[in-house]
């Protein structure tokens, strides 16, 4: 059986080399990459080291503004805000990332399957998508919390469900446009089955799209997680999360504004970094897509 040429190691290496050369000259990508890498590094460092313990209370030093010993100040329990932001980053990243994985893991196979089967299956999938679109993550989270009680897992499920139709649509569109291409027909002539064709020829060709959309969904997930945690539907105390910190800061706005400003800035910077990274990736990976948009 003739196997169709798939990228050899040398090809892959030269392609990734070309990617980095192009990426480095893209300002959005560079800025986004640096910001995102910093936030992820901060979250990783928090596993082994934070300036102070985030669970331990130190009432004597409560509500201090930023200083040399507490760079970002302390909260109403005397906890160090920088340490809380570091640990909170871990939480935000984990929730948003798993939600993206759910979206891709469920949405992409569904989209590919619907596109290659067509007909009734396809129609049913698209209508199912419409149905899920009628449930914003916040409403799903409300329902899930009403059933199981609050927790970080609920936030992951609610945001993940919201991500499924986004990726299903993307995968369906990409599959529909790739199916009539010659290399797919050639694979079919060579006797490959539907699943193998999707795995070996369709998926690698939509990987770029998935990376770009994944970055954007990641950014959106961080915003959604913060919102859910803020209203008490996400991560529960004593584990710190950015949204929860903003909720606690709210009643202390008049005398400790730093408690609200700094965690909010952490959210804005992280989301901004991911959005810039997504825009940059789109320019570098698929110049056709960025035409007329930027």
């Amino acid at each position, binding site marked *: 059986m003739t196997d169709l040429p798939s990228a050899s190691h040398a090809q892959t290496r030269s392609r990734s080399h070309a990617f980095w050369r192009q990426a480095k000259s893209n300002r959005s990508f560079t800025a986004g990459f640096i910001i995102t890498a910093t936030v992820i590094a901060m979250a990783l460092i928090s596993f082994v080291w934070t300036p102070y313990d985030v669970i331990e209370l130190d009432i004597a030093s409560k509500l201090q503004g930023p200083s040399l010993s507490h760079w970002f100040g302390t909260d109403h329990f005397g906890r160090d805000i920088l340490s809380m932001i570091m640990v909170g980053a871990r939480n935000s990243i984990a929730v948003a990332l798993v939600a993206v994985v759910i979206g891709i893991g469920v949405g992409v196979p569904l989209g590919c399957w619907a596109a290659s089967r067509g007909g009734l299956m396809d129609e049913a999938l698209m209508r199912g998508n419409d149905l899920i*679109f009628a449930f914003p993550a916040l409403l799903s989270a409300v329902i899930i919390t009403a059933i199981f009680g609050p927790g970080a897992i609920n936030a992951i499920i609610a945001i993940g469900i919201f991500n499924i139709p986004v990726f299903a649509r993307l995968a369906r569109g990409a599959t529909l446009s790739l199916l009539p291409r010659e290399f797919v027909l050639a694979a079919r002539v060579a006797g490959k089955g539907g699943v193998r064709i999707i795995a070996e020829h369709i998926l690698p060709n939509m990987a770029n799209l998935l990376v770009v959309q994944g970055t954007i969904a990641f950014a959106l997930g961080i915003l959604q997680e913060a919102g859910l945690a803020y209203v008490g539907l996400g991560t529960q105390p004593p584990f710190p999360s950015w949204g929860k910190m903003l909720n606690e800061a709210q009643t202390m706005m008049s005398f400790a504004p730093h408690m609200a400003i700094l965690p909010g800035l952490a959210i804005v910077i992280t989301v901004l970094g991911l959005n810039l990274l997504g825009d940059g990736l789109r320019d570098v990976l698929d110049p056709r897509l960025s035409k007329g948009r930027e």
Partner: protein
Amino acid sequence: MIKALAHKLIWAALTLVAASILVFLALEIVPGDPAEVMLGINATDEAVAALRKQLGLDLPPLQRYFAWVGGLLTGDLGTSYTYSVPVSELVAERVVVSLPLALMALFLSTVIAIPVGLIAAGKRGTMADTGIMAVTQIGIAIPNFWFALLLVYVLAIWLQWVPAGGFPGWEQGLWPGLNALLLPAIALALPQAAILSRVTRSALLETLGEDYIRTARAKGLSRRATLSRHALRNALIPVVTIIGLQFAYLLAGTIIIENVFYLPGLGRLIFQAINLRDLIVVESVVMLLVATIIAINFLVDLTYVWIDPRLRTSSDAETSAAQTQTDGAS
């Protein structure tokens, strides 16, 4: 065209039915008996059984589903387990806060975003465009409830120009009511306006490359007139799609923003109901919001036809709608 609309209407109705089944099933698997919750732990078995009968909880699920949906259709949302008043009364009290808030935010976001998008597209590549794009890029990254907290800090606590929260009630007059909703509406609107102006700009830039725009310019129409008369209408489909999606998002967003400003809206009702395990309230309010979102999506489909007469004859509506929705998601 009538056929296409009927087709869409039927699908919207089926989506609504499917959504109601989902919501009903989800809350059906909730552990705990509302009758026991209402009567407390000291209630006798007979009292619980009597209350279950009164609430209709002893009926089989299918019968209860139809009773619930029948009630929804006739405006009877059941009786709150904790307040012992009709849910429809609770909802009516709260809707008059949440709905005006979402509409105000939608209005603000649209009147800000469309001119901003027009300016950015018209002055493409200039400092103004770059500046607008940078500001909107940051605007997209700002969580609206955090922006709300900052507004409260600056305008209410520091400058003391506006009240920090609360709602006087419409019976105090239109102005005090609107005044109380202004800050929350701005907080909701600005991050949305950032998204909408970017969409408007890119949709305009796409249409500006078309032949009829060159024709309009060639026949002597000014740049400005070309933009507002020819390009804008043709760029409206993605813009309207995003406005529709945003309204759904704003309705849900009010639930969060109400917490910042202590507004007695649907959001506060939902969270109180969750804490008190008053599931019939959660069920009805969620269903109401979902139904509104489905209705908005249907209206957005209708506006496509109104905006673009070509869609009245061909069956392209489906394709272009699907296309713009994917664009909107990204």
